[in-house]
C-alpha cells in the first residue's frame, strides 16, 4: 500500500526577500523536490508602451530608464540608437565614445548588483556589501556627469545632455585602479569558496539548444557555451574600435551552463568592461556633444528594430513611427522578460533552496519584466 503523498503548493513571493522584486513563484513541491514552477508577473506593470504613444520622442527617454533601473544607461542607449536610425542622424565621434564608456560603467555596476545579491541569496552577506561599496563609486561618477545616480536621462537623441565633467577621466582611472584588487578579493571570498561552489555548481543546468529555443540572451546564453554578444556579432556604435574578448562558460566547477558558470561569466565580463573603458578613455576625441541634437524630432513613416547588449541580455526596441512627433508604437524586447520563462525548465527536480540559487543566477529585474 503506497502512502498517498499530496503535493504541497508553496507560494514564494510577491513579497519575498530574494525574488529580486515583485515576482510570485508558485512552486509545487513533492516533499522538498520541485515538480513545477509557475512564475506570476505583472505586479510592477506600469504600461510603458502605452506611455510612449502619448509622449514625444525625447520625453520617452526618462521612461526607458525606469524599465531596467539597474542598467538605465543601456536602456537609453538602445532607444536612442533606434530613433537616430529613423532620423538618419550621424552622431559626433566623441558622443559615441562617451556612450560606450557610460554603458560599460553601467554594465559593471549592474553586474556588481547581480553578484552581490546572488551571494546574499546563498547566504554570504559580506560580499554583497563589498560589491555595493564599489558600485557607489560608479554611481558617484554618473552623479558628477549628469546629476542623477540611478535614472539618468543622459543619452539624448543625437547627443548627450551634458559633456563629461572636467575630472571625470581622473576619477574613472582612480576607480579602475582601486577596483581591480577588489575584484580579486571578491573571487577569494565568494567565487572559489567551496560552499558557494557546492551550492551553485551543477545546479540549474541550461543546455545550449534549449537556451537558443527559449530565446535566452546575455550572460545566461554565454554561460551555456555560445560566444554570442551583440557588441561583437551585431556591432553598434563604436564597439568595433575596441578589442575585448567575450567570456564563455567552460564548466570549470561543474557542467557547462550551470549556475556557477552564469555567475562566473558575469565576473569575467566585468574585467572585459574595464578593458573597454580604459581603451575608450585613451582614444576619447574632442568635440561638442550637443551639436547634432535636432530641435524638432519628426521621423519619417517606417519601423525599425534596434538592439543593444544590456547587462542582462539583448534589449530590443521595435519603434514604429507614423511621421508625427510621438511614436505610433514602441515594443520592448526586455531580456529579463524572456530569460524568466526558463525558470520552470531549470528548477524541475531541484530543492527549494536551489530555486533561490537559480533565480539569483538568472538575474532578473522586475521593472524590465513587467514594463
Amino acid at each position, binding site marked *: 500500500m503506497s502512502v498517498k503523498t499530496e503535493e504541497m503548493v508553496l507560494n514564494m513571493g510577491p513579497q519575498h526577500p530574494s525574488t529580486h522584486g515583485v515576482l510570485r513563484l508558485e512552486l509545487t513541491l513533492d516533499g522538498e523536490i520541485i515538480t513545477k514552477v509557475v512564475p506570476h508577473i505583472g505586479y510592477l506593470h506600469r504600461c510603458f508602451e502605452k506611455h510612449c504613444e502619448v*509622449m514625444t520622442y*525625447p*520625453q*520617452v*527617454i*526618462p*521612461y526607458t530608464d525606469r524599465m531596467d533601473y539597474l542598467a538605465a544607461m543601456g536602456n537609453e542607449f538602445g532607444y536612442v540608437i533606434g530613433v537616430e536610425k529613423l532620423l538618419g542622424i550621424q552622431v559626433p565621434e566623441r558622443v559615441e565614445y562617451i556612450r560606450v564608456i557610460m554603458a560599460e560603467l553601467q554594465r559593471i555596476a549592474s553586474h556588481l548588483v547581480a553578484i552581490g545579491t546572488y551571494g546574499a541569496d546563498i547566504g554570504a552577506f*559580506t560580499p554583497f556589501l*563589498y560589491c555595493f*561599496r564599489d558600485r*557607489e563609486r560608479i554611481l558617484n561618477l554618473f*552623479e*558628477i*556627469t*549628469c*546629476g*542623477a545616480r540611478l*535614472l539618468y*536621462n543622459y543619452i539624448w537623441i543625437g547627443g548627450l*545632455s*551634458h559633456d563629461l*565633467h572636467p575630472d571625470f577621466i581622473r576619477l574613472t582611472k582612480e576607480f579602475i585602479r582601486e577596483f581591480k584588487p577588489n575584484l580579486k*578579493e571578491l573571487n*577569494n*571570498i*565568494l567565487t*572559489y*569558496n*567551496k*560552499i558557494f561552489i557546492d551550492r551553485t555548481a551543477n545546479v540549474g543546468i541550461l543546455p545550449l539548444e534549449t537556451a537558443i529555443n527559449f530565446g535566452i540572451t546575455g550572460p545566461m546564453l554565454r554561460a551555456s557555451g555560445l560566444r554570442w554578444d551583440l557588441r561583437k556579432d551585431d556591432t553598434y556604435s563604436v564597439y568595433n574600435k575596441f578589442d575585448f574578448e567575450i567570456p564563455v562558460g567552460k564548466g570549470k566547477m561543474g557542467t557547462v551552463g550551470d549556475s556557477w558558470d552564469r555567475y562566473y561569466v558575469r565576473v569575467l565580463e566585468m574585467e572585459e568592461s574595464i578593458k573597454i573603458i580604459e581603451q575608450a578613455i585613451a582614444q576619447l576625441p574632442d568635440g561638442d556633444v550637443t551639436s547634432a541634437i535636432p530641435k524638432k524630432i519628426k521621423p519619417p513613416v517606417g519601423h525599425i528594430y534596434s538592439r543593444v547588449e544590456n547587462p542582462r541580455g539583448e534589449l530590443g526596441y521595435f519603434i514604429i513611427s507614423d511621421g508625427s512627433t510621438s511614436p505610433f508604437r514602441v515594443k520592448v524586447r526586455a531580456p529579463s522578460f524572456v530569460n524568466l520563462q526558463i525558470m520552470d525548465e531549470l528548477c524541475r527536480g531541484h530543492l527549494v533552496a536551489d530555486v533561490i540559487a537559480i533565480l539569483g543566477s538568472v538575474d532578473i529585474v522586475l521593472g524590465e519584466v513587467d514594463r
Partner: protein
Amino acid sequence: MKEYFNNIFTALFTIFVGMKVTLRHLFTPSVTIQYPDVKLPLPERERNRLYVNMDDCIGCDQCARACPVNCIEIETVKSLPGEDLGKTSNGKKKALWVTKFTIDFAKCCYCQLCVFPCPTECIYMTDVYEFSEYDRNNLIYDFATLTTEERIQKLENLDKHYHERETKKLGRI
C-alpha cells in the same frame, strides 16, 4: 577516495582564505558616514528640487510642454497694451501676466527636461533634497508672485478691455 580528501582540503582551504579576507576588512576603515551630522557635498550638476526665478519667467509654457509627466501648470493673462511689466534679466520685454505657476513635486521625476528649453533660464535645479512632506498636496509648490486679488483683477481688466474693443469695433461699423 582521493576526491574525498580533496573535498575536505579545498573546503578548509577556501574557508580560511575567506576568513583572511574578512579579518583584513575588520581593520580597514569603514566607508559609512553618520548622515544627519555629516552630509556629503553634492556635485554642482546635481538634479534635485526645481526653482523658478519668477521675475525672468515670461510665461512661454516651454517647460510645461517638455515635461514628460505634466507636473508643471502655467496660466497666463495677456497684459493690456499700456501696461508695463518690466524686463527680464537679459533685457527681454515681458508681455504676459503669469497668474498661475505650480509644480507638483510628488509627480516630478527630476529628469531636467524642463530646464533646457527655457529661453530665459529661469527654471533650474537646486541641491535641496530634503523636502519630504506628510501630506502629498503640500508638495504642490506655487511660484506665481501675484496675490490672488491681483489675479482676479487682471482677468477682469482683460475682459473689460476685450469688451471695450468689441464695442469700439461695433461702434465703427
